[in-house]
């Protein structure tokens, strides 16, 4: 088994077109399959952090604690340690968090706030105030007056709220909105009509307005002001209590009017895709114990929507990942078929040479090895270049999804070629004996039917798996591969079925075409049946059209703008972009593969077509006529393949909306309506345009050639 290097080089040079095409397909396929999985993975990781930060308040957790109860009937007393008590509550709340939650949430912000008070002094109604204590906000600048203090005019202990006013601070904005300044004494009323007097001790400004304290109590800095359509203004303002004036505030308001709020916020980036499930579990655990008084201390009622936020984003990631896998599967299947097709093209061009070598005694393994050297080189160069590009662009490389591409690219061409050479030189392949020929034909039919049934069964199995189990994105690619391949296998099955229907249908056209007077319909029909019977081009056209339409429709549906609930949180950010880009790239690649299939199919049938055309031209057919025959031959394949693919892709996309739970991506209550964008018609149009171009190119080449030379070949 010695390799003959000069002939290998010669072959490679002679067939550099198909080899380059193979290399291009491998390059693009490896580019996509090597880059997409890590990109999706990385973006999914980031998506959790993005969703948490986008959720804002919803990602936080609050614990509400009523201030320690006063005993009814007893005279009320000033409780100078109120601030310390509130801080103590925060400590107890934090004690209740397990280590995971403690690592996720930053230190809590404690605030105490009263219920709403209506400002009665001066001005119009509609000015609501709250007394708010926020611990010791480190960074306040008092631009006027001083921080609120214990009212100097009263004694240490006293009973009853009135007539001592509560000392409060105002933000600069609040002082402007309410028209109050330092030293002003104002009257407010609670809902029951209880009077609360306030004295403005000073005006402040936040040194760091982005501090978390101000996020918890934003109206301490900026009153919320609304003007309705009639021009009536309402405002909501929080006024600041200090640790010293908080006891006065409590005493001034009704006994149950003040609550301690402990606010937890997740620190940026502390929740990832990995720990999110643990966080969810911890929150559930914590929620179970909420509202129950601890051994000593108050009943703490935890409240958060964080687990909902996390569950939603995890669901969205799962759906997005599943969709990405489906799209990758589509690319893989179509690329696999395309590589088989280029291998077939190569084999066709080399058929004579290889058969000759075989006849002269070359062994099949030897031929295989010679050809494998070439396919390994092509694959290594193209795949390596793609891998390098991926590595440079995204600084990461995982070739797991590229392996099938590389395998087919290496093994496909030599195997197809050797099988063809073996068939051509096998004497049993063309027996002279009639019954032996029939047996052979039956065997071939059986083999074909077996293959078809196997593909159909795989498609049915994959589809069933998809509809029953969905795509498990967490237990590795292997478990999810079969259901993820469902759309692709269904598309391939569609191609196989069309392959059964189209050639007989076209041959059936011979009859009516024969009834017409002219020669072109009959001649076109006679060629069309043969061309439509070529397995790989037709199957690849249908498959890649269907999957292109599928990818583009799913993309449009997933990013479609339907009625969205106001509190819905559609998947946004890099992962959503990645998914959209992937669907677009996959769609475009699949379109290109459909065109490639048609072109290679046309190249494959070109010698026969050229031969027929030459023969017919000796009978007086013009070159222009041969163009019509070429159109009539290729157009049925392009049209039928494109349209069947389009319909199949549409059906697949509409099924996928439910099966892949696309509504989750946009946080919709129900499955969205399928959106089939105009771009899905592009593959069909491209196929038609390609046929016209092929016919034009062939006839212009034909015009240049000398018929005598063609007939010699």
């Amino acid at each position: 088994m010695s390799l003959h290097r000069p002939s290998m080089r010669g072959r490679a040079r002679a067939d550099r077109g198909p080899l380059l095409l193979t290399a291009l397909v491998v390059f693009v396929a490896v580019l996509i399959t090597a880059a997409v999985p890590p990109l999706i993975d990385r973006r999914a990781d980031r998506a959790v952090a993005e969703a948490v930060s986008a959720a804002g308040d919803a990602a936080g957790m609050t614990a509400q604690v009523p201030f320690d109860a006063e005993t009814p009937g007893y005279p009320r007393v000033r409780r100078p340690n109120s601030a310390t008590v509130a801080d103590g509550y925060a400590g107890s709340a934090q004690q209740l968090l397990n280590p995971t939650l403690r690592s996720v949430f930053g230190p809590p912000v404690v605030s105490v706030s009263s219920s709403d008070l209506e400002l009665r002094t001066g001005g119009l109604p509609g000015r609501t105030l709250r007394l708010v204590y926020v611990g010791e906000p480190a960074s306040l600048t008092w631009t006027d007056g001083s921080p609120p203090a214990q009212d100097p005019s009263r004694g240490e202990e006293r009973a009853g709220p009135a007539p001592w006013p509560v000392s409060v601070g105002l933000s600069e904005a609040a002082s402007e909105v309410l028209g109050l300044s330092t030293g002003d004494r104002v009257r407010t009323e609670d809902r029951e009509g209880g009077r609360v007097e306030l004295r403005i001790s000073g005006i402040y400004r936040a040194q760091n307005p982005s501090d978390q304290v101000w996020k918890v109590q934003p109206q301490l800095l900026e009153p919320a002001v609304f003007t309705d359509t009639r021009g009536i203004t309402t405002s909501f303002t929080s006024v600041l209590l200090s640790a010293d004036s908080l006891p006065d505030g409590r005493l001034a308001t009704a006994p149950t009017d003040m609550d301690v709020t402990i606010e937890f916020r997740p620190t940026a980036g502390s929740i990832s895709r990995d720990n999110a499930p643990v966080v969810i579990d911890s929150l559930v655990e914590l929620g179970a114990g909420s509202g129950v008084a601890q051994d000593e201390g108050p009943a703490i009622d935890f409240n958060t929507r964080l687990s909902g936020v996390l569950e939603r984003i995890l669901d969205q990631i799962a759906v997005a990942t599943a969709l990405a896998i489906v799209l990758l599967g589509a690319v893989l299947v179509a690329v696999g078929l395309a590589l088989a097709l280029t291998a077939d093209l190569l084999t066709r061009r080399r058929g004579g040479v290889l058969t000759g070598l075989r006849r002269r005694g070359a062994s099949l393994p030897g031929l295989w090895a010679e050809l494998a050297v070439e396919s390994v080189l092509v694959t290594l160069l193209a795949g390596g270049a793609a891998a390098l590009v991926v590595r440079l662009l995204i600084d990461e490389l995982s070739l797991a999804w590229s392996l099938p591409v590389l395998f087919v690219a290496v093994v496909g061409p030599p195997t197809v070629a050797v099988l063809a050479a073996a068939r051509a030189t096998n004497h049993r392949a063309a027996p002279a004996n009639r019954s032996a020929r029939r047996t052979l034909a039956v065997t071939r039919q059986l083999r074909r039917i077996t293959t078809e049934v196997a593909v159909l069964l795989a498609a049915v199995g994959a589809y069933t798996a998809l509809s029953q189990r969905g795509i498990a994105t967490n237990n590795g690619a292997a478990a999810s591969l079969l259901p993820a391949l469902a759309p692709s296998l269904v598309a391939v099955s569609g191609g196989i079925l069309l392959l059964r229907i189209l050639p007989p249908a076209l041959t059936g056209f011979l009859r009516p075409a024969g009834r017409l007077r002219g020669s072109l319909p009959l001649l076109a029909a006679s060629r069309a049946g043969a061309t439509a019977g070529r397995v790989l081009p037709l199957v690849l056209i249908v498959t890649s059209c269907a999957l292109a339409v599928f990818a583009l429709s799913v993309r449009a549906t997933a990013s479609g703008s339907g009625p969205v609930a106001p509190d819905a949180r559609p998947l946004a950010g890099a992962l959503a972009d990645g998914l959209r880009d992937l669907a677009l790239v996959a769609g475009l690649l699949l379109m290109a593969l459909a065109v490639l299939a048609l072109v290679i199919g046309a190249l494959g049938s070109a010698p026969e077509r050229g031969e027929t055309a030459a023969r017919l031209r000796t009978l007086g057919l013009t070159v222009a006529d041969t163009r019509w025959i070429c159109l009539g031959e290729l157009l049925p394949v392009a049209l039928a393949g494109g349209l069947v693919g389009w319909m199949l892709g549409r059906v697949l996309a509409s099924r996928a909306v439910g099966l892949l739970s696309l509504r989750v991506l946009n946080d919709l209550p129900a499955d969205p309506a399928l959106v089939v964008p105009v771009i899905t018609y592009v593959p069909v149009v491209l196929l038609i345009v390609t046929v016209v171009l092929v016919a034009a190119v062939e006839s212009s080449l034909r015009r240049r050639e000398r018929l005598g030379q063609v007939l010699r070949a």
Partner: protein
Amino acid sequence: MLSIRGVSRSYGSSQVLHDVSFDVAAGTLVALVGRSGSGKTTLLNMVGGLDRPDAGTVLVDGADVTALDEAGRSRLRRDKVSYVFQTFGLVPVLSAAENVGIPLRMRHTPREEREKRVARLLDLVGLAGHARQRPDELSGGQQQRVAIARALASSPRLLVADEPTGQLDAETGLSVMALLRGVVESEGVTALVSTHDPVMMRLADRIVRISDGRVTHDEETAG
């Protein structure tokens, strides 16, 4: 009928035809003989405009073939010069009758007339019973007969056959040759046939021998 005057043709540096001249009278069967590579096919291709000479003219019915454009050459082959090749060149999925009907369809012959003529031609070549068979269901000799019938369909003035018996065994070849001889008589067509076979030459009215692209011998046969 056919007049070849001073035709030369070279491929690159090798000259294949050197100043070839001869005439073919209407209604005769002329055999063009010569060793392989002597230039027979090249010359026959000139006659129907499948190839063009570097110098010289080819006149069919007085009209200069070498001066025709692409459309003119198509018309020439459709109406005046028919070819029969060694490899029969039938359209595989079409029946014998459909194959024979192709030239008539190209001329938009009305259907009834076409069918009548196809039937007559198949009868003429002895294949009346095989009208509906496809080429792969016919023997080589039968396929060549279909090809001859097809070549005659458009009532050409000149039938050019390039080794029509080359792929047939001797006996079948002889019967095909006899058929050609017969149609020259019955259809009044002129035939130029290249061949290697001495037996076949005897059926011709005249033998033109070329070697290395030159006419070396030109004689009427005794027959």
